């Protein structure tokens, strides 16, 4: 009749809620994207019909992301940078790494670094070309011009 167990307590079972929370954590961990820190999401990229998606896993291995706004201001990782100084600095670093990785690398050889250009569609060509030319002069040869596809826009 009178047991030792207190029959008035009602403890909710926390196991299902904990399970759901772990499911949500797993979801957000899997979709977490560190690349967006290097992208200026205020830029409106041009729309083209046949741009190709970047090959998975290869794009960001060795690349520099440059964001160019309609005024021609260069931003890297959200920070405004001087075009000449930044290109010289990146060229120097890229050459140093290339020499360390390949003893046959000489000054004047093409740098194995991809320059990813994210420019606003309203940017004037002269402003864009100023940035591209600065990097070309440092030995960068591989350029990827980002755009939105017609489907995704």
């Amino acid at each position, binding site marked *: 009749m009178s047991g030792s167990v207190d029959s008035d307590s009602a403890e909710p079972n926390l196991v299902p809620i904990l399970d759901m929370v772990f499911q949500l*954590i797993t979801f957000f961990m899997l979709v977490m994207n560190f690349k967006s820190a290097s992208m200026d999401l205020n830029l409106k990229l041009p*729309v083209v019909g046949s741009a*190709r998606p970047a090959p998975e896993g290869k794009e960001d291995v060795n690349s520099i992301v440059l964001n160019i706004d309609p005024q021609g201001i260069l931003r890297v990782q959200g920070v405004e940078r001087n075009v000449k100084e930044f290109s010289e600095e990146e060229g120097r670093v890229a050459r140093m790494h290339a020499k360390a990785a390949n003893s046959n690398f000489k000054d004047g050889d093409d740098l194995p670094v991809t320059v990813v250009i994210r420019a606003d569609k309203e940017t004037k060509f002269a402003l864009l070309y100023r940035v591209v030319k600065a990097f070309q002069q440092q030995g960068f040869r591989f*350029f990827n011009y980002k755009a939105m596809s017609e489907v995704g826009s």
Partner: protein
Amino acid sequence: MSRRKQHNASSGDEVKLNMTAMLDMAFQLLAFFVLTFKPAPVEEQIAMRMPDPSRIAIRTPPPPPVGGGVEPVDFGSQQLTVSLYPDKAGELDTIAVATTRVAVDGTQKQKIAALHLDLSRKFAHPGNSFDKVVLMVGSTMRYDTVIQVMDMCSQLKFADGTQLKKLTFVELPVVASHTLSEREGI
């Protein structure tokens, strides 16, 4: 003895794990991931290998004559020059391929389509000696326009079926950048 029996009866074998602390930590983690979640747009790209601009032989194109026509292009060099002249709004005003004016009237889309047609004919001609295309772009041209032309050029194929791989762009000289209409006093 009875005390021991009572002690054994009340302790039992059931062990309860207090989930509250674990749930609290899990919510903390969840809050962190939710607040740092920022969906990145799906972007595509046009990949180009661009040579040193000083190595590109730039010939400032003379004012292109009116009219067009299919003709084999051979300047003794291996590049085909496409000049893009902007209007005041930064859109395409006139396009010239080598010394031939390709498109003057129509919407931007129509002009790019006319350029595509002209280039396709030139690419298909077996007598051509060029293997690269150089876009000479007016300084005030919108990037949107330039990339549409680049996109179109990157799909061109030669007579043997190989795709154009050498495509680059440079800036038109300042004088040549003025719209042809301004230069010709129209």
